[in-house]
């Protein structure tokens, strides 16, 4: 009897150890967002097994896979709006084939990857998603435990965060109504894709759709809606330092004028500058209304870039200074641009002797 109890205890202990093999940390822990808007998640996987593990593949990313997060409501039900799902054909693993590549995932080591929330995007607009959800990210790990393919063990680690979908109001609601109306009235003969009757408009289509001219509708009529912010955030520029103190030739390169036959250059330069000025106006109008927008750093990065291209260096540097005080990769770009400008200033001062002591 004692032996049996001990065995049961050992089994429980083993299960406990197995469940501790990997842990994942998903950030941010809480997200408040409009349905259909992009959510980027950072996922960190840790090898908690206290031993080095071999992972299948040439690099860790080959054997550690994470899909998008699933959404679970307060009743524990998974949100599933995909009617069909795709079907794929695959070659199977060949169980007795030798494992060609494996990479070590050391005890206590971490591996970072990106994930996102896509689950609500296939849901029709008629489905009210307002409220709190749990976003669950599962990471699958291919652990190699022998020389053959059949020796691969599929381990899994799961992490969760809280997501709150906000109810669209004001300009956002007006945009949704406009898109719905546009699709309902679209001519089926010229519409790219299904009519609204054949396939309901989904939350995801508010920001990316081949059947709706999303950027045009958003930026023309609802440029300060929250949804527009996500479209405008695409104007961000990571390597801002490349665009500081540009010559006219450099600006022509960015505008795409260089390499064009001379007789076309003036008209094209004018056209491209107008495009950049229009975008700048939109970005500045948006940030004035939404200074705390979740992607404000990307918006400010875009403003800085467009000001630089339009030759408004001083205004651009003011914007870059604001951005440099923020956090994340876009602010890092601004700090790099700023430091480069400081070096440029120093060079000038040295040349004129002002810095000599």
């Amino acid at each position, binding site marked *: 009897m004692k032996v049996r109890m001990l065995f049961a205890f050992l089994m429980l202990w083993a299960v406990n150890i197995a469940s501790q093999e990997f842990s994942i940390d998903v950030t941010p822990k809480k997200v408040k967002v409009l349905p259909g808007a992009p959510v980027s998640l950072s996922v960190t996987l840790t090898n908690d097994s206290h031993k080095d593990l071999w992972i299948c593949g040439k690099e860790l990313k080959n054997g550690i896979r994470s899909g998008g*997060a699933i959404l679970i409501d307060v009743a524990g039900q998974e949100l599933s709006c995909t009617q069909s799902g795709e079907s*794929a*054909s695959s*070659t199977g693993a060949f169980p007795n084939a030798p494992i060609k590549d494996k990479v070590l995932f050391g005890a206590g080591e971490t591996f970072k990857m990106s994930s996102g929330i896509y689950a609500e995007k296939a849901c029709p607009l008629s489905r009210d998603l307002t409220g709190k959800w749990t976003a669950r990210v599962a990471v699958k790990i291919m652990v190699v435990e022998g020389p053959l393919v059949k020796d691969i063990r*599929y381990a899994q680690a799961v992490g969760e965060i809280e997501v709150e979908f906000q109810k669209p109001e004001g300009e956002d609601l007006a945009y949704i109504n406009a898109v719905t109306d546009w699709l309902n009235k679209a001519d089926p003969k010229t519409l790219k894709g299904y009519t609204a009757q*054949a396939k309901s408009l989904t939350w995801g289509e508010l920001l990316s759709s081949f059947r709706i001219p999303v950027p045009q509708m958003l930026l023309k009529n609802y440029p300060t809606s929250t949804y527009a912010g996500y479209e405008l955030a695409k104007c961000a520029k990571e390597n801002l330092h490349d665009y500081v103190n540009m010559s006219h030739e450099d600006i022509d390169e*960015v505008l795409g004028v260089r390499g064009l*036959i001379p007789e076309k250059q003036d008209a094209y330069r004018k056209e491209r500058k107008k495009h950049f000025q229009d975008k700048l106006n939109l970005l500045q109008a948006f940030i004035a209304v939404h200074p705390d927008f979740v992607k404000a750093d990307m918006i400010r990065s875009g403003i800085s870039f467009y000001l630089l291209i339009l030759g408004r260096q001083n205004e651009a540097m003011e914007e870059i200074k604001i951005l440099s005080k923020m956090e994340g990769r876009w602010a890092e770009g601004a700090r790099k641009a700023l430091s480069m400008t400081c070096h440029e200033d120093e060079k000038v001062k040295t040349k004129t002797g002002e810095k000599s002591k």
Partner: protein
Amino acid sequence: MLFEEGTAPVVIPAGRTFLRILKGPGGAQIENLNEGDKIAIFDASRPYESQHDEAYIGTIDRSTYTDYTVVTLKQSDLSTDYTTKYSYTTSPMDAATHYPDFSQGSSAGVGVVYSTTAIEGKTVTDTSSNQINGEGSAFYEADMRDIEKTYNDAYVEFYGLRSGMNAVPYIDPQMPFYTVNETPGDDETNRLNFHQIWWKNNSYNWNYFHLVGCRGDDFVWTGSTTGITDPSNNDSYIYRWTVEGLGENQSYTPEQVNLATQALTNHELAHQFWLNRCSNLTCGSDTNLGKHDDRPWWNFNTTGCPNDNPCLMDWKGGNLIDEFNRFCKEDLFLGDPNCGSTIKPDSAIRTISDPIP
């Protein structure tokens, strides 16, 4: 993919003596370009099959710019400048990911049509129509040559419309495009948007499907996706390079690689009919991503997993090289027995009995 600054599609005017080509993640999108290559320049509005520019690459500047590479265009003597005659419309680059945004624009790009530098082990010398992955082929192609025999069993006929055929730009596997995720993600979105740009029947007609032959991921011994279908949106992709990798792994002859491509083409197109829509019979495989069959083809009543006489809708496509590309009875006309009575009739190729109204 051609690159221009900005978040909206840009019309690159005629009169260019060089092109800017999107680097993509890690510069992967430009790895296959070499000085001296002859390239075709085209987009969805001015496809390869219509009048377009073809020029030789003079020089390639891969390092000066972060987002793109500059390629000078030359005539066949490789010294005289080539000036483009036509305009092309880009799909803009997403600033955050550096991927092209296929929900906008016309996916302007280039393709190598002649190269003496081996690309993935092959030189490019042949762009003639209907050569179907022949020696020196510039294309990765799906293969419908066996389709008649297979679909005759269902009294269904496919026509590959010449007017609908065109080349599409190369997509490198470093882009999120070919992978099949258990939950939707960037790959699925990119495939869908790319299909929409290039499909001639994108204002939906119910009896058209879009078959795309493309590269796919590198084959891996743990199992690879060889094709994918989204019946909700009428697109099927065949991953020819992956099939070639399978062939190398399994010591297929070139003819057997073609037979496998044909079987997979028939298989993927069959997914368009929503076969096995209520089942996922993959013999417990980890590849649990599609609606497949473990039943025998129609001449047999064998059972077992995997079936000794697998039908075409087996999750691996059955035996890919035995030339028996036959459906099981449920796929042909009975429908999926796991579906309820209202859906079941819509889960077979043949859904209406004679006489067809």
